[in-house]
């Protein structure tokens, strides 16, 4: 505040500061419920997960595991599955990119052009979540199946060879991932775009921006928070997903999630997958 009195070249500090003094009080108490929840259900399991990942892998579910600080679990996990890791990140990256391309225009239209249909359209975006993730992915099996309409159409217009198929290819897995995670991209983008003041877009037009330049210089930069959160919300779950690879792909398209699921539920090998997950 003393700044305000000094010479003109140093303009007075932004007004926002005065607020803070008043805010310092009991507000941090509001953190307690959430923090407790996270401590019990996130921090504790994570620590436990970490220790499990260092158990002796020669143990078994029935005999129990011995704690031997077996750091080599990590090396095993990374060497065994490096191709799965790479594939997972690649699929997730492509998925995120395609989601962004599809969701941006959709979110833009809902935010600026939908008028009184806005709420209806938002509900439609999220409505598929009433059906289970598994069932929705299964129905994509039917859509992409060898006798299905999409495959035969693509064969007719000769994009796909006559014996070509969609199911059991990377295309099918990524298509499934895109479908399943599209709302996670659309909603944050919408939230961001909806906050963009339409008058700013008008102002850009008034200042010699064509609609495209206005988008590039004003709308898009202002929607970046949505792009970032949408990307995170899509990329992270997509890279850990195993349902799509399992139902729409073959072991050749398996992702790291498949391996972890198999190790946990089928092989009952505990230390190994935990090392996987931790790394």
């Amino acid at each position, binding site marked *: 505040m003393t700044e305000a009195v000094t010479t003109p070249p140093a303009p007075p500090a*932004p007004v926002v500061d005065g607020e803070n003094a008043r805010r310092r009080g009991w507000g941090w108490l509001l953190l307690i419920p959430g923090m407790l929840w996270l401590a019990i259900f996130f921090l504790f399991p994570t620590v436990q997960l970490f220790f499990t990942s260092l158990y002796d892998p020669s143990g078994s579910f029935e005999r129990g595991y011995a704690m031997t600080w077996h750091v080599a679990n990590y090396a095993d996990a990374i060497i065994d599955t490096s191709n799965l890791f790479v594939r997972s990140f690649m699929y997730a990256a492509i998925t995120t990119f395609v989601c962004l391309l599809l969701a941006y225009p959709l979110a833009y239209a809902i935010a600026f052009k939908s008028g009184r249909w806005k709420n209806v359209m938002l509900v439609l975006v999220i409505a598929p979540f009433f059906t289970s993730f598994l069932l929705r992915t299964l129905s994509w099996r039917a859509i992409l199946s060898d006798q299905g309409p999409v495959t035969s159409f693509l064969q007719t217009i000769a994009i796909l060879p006559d014996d070509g198929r969609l199911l059991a290819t990377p295309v099918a897995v990524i298509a499934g991932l895109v479908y399943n995670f599209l709302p996670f991209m659309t909603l944050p983008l919408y939230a961001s775009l909806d906050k963009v003041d339409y008058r*700013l877009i008008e*102002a*850009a037009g*008034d*200042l*010699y*921006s*064509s609609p495209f330049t206005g988008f590039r*210089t004003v709308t898009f930069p202002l929607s970046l928070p949505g792009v970032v959160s949408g990307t995170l919300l899509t990329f992270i779950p997509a890279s850990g997903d195993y349902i799509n690879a399992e139902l729409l792909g073959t072991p050749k398209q398996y992702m790291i999630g498949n391996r972890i699921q198999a190790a946990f539920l089928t092989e009952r090998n505990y230390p190994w997958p935990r090392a996987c997950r931790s790394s």
Partner: protein
Amino acid sequence: MTESTTPGTSRAAGKDLRLEGVTKRFGDFVAVDDLTLTVPQGSFFALLGPSGCGKTTTLRMVAGLEEPTTGRVLIGAEDITNLRPYKRPVNTVFQSYALFPHLTIFDNVAFGPRRRGVKDYQQKTRDMLKLVQLEPYATRKPAQLSGGQQQRVALGRALINEPGVLLLDEPLGALDLKLRRQMQIELKRIQTEIGITFVHVTHDQEEAMTMADTIAVMNAGVIEQMGAPGDLYENPETTFVANFLGQSNLIMVDVGDTSGRAVVVDCHGQKVGVESTRSHTSAGKGWLGVRPEKIFASPAGLENHNGSNVLTGGRISDVSFVGVSTQYLVRMPWGQELMVFEQNTGQRAAFKNGDEVDLAWSRAHAFLLDADQDAQAGMMTPEADT
């Protein structure tokens, strides 16, 4: 400005802003109704009216943000009716400023020149920041500035493009009274300095009168009256203008002899005169208008009001002392209460409730309006001076 440069007028006048028969409908609602007006190049023009009168819609049609339903918008000889906003030689200072929150003050001001590919935009931007006195703030973001500073950024961002016409949409509406006065003077100074045509939309009659060369008073999509601030105030042609610009006493009268230089009217039995140039009705009934500060109150029967109009039989019914003046309500024999503002010169003791007074005013100060109009028109509080 245009008059003084007679030799060059053919080119200068070629940049006048003209609206020809412009109508804008939103569904059934007619926002602007067959509007025709010319704004001479280099003038400070104000569109004044209550909210919803169509003034902002008119401005947006000039900016290209709305399309007229019918009619044409021209700058000089160029028809810009169908030009996209970014192709018009017009810039706007928006009511909310609409500064780009993600850009610095420098980048906000440089926005227009950059889009147009101006080579030395950096120098021009620095010059403009100097003109609006914001140089030390160049690297700040808009949210870090005060309202008045943001307002100057908005102004600089528009002015730097040297538009043919600068549109200002209630540019001072968000500022407090003191800052607003200051910015009024500032705006007028800048306009005189650079000579760009300003079209200023406002609901604040004082703001319009302080700054504009010409005011068009708008109501319900049409222009009620247009002219210099003084002319509009002294000689309103409609009850709307009489009430919206300042305050007026409107008295129902019978119009009598209209043959002479002054129209004689019968005001509830007392004869008064109105100069014929100030009469805007012909015969029958009429509204006689007098501004409260033009009326001189004197103790009943005491003074000789040579040549003035006099109404006798008034009785003071309310006194409010406001410092620079005292405002009286005077109940007339026919029941109406008239407002009288008296400058606080200290020459005479103030009247008290119940005192009997005569009211006098010069013939050159009254006006006569058509009786078909609503005497209350334009009396709505102009958005309570927000």
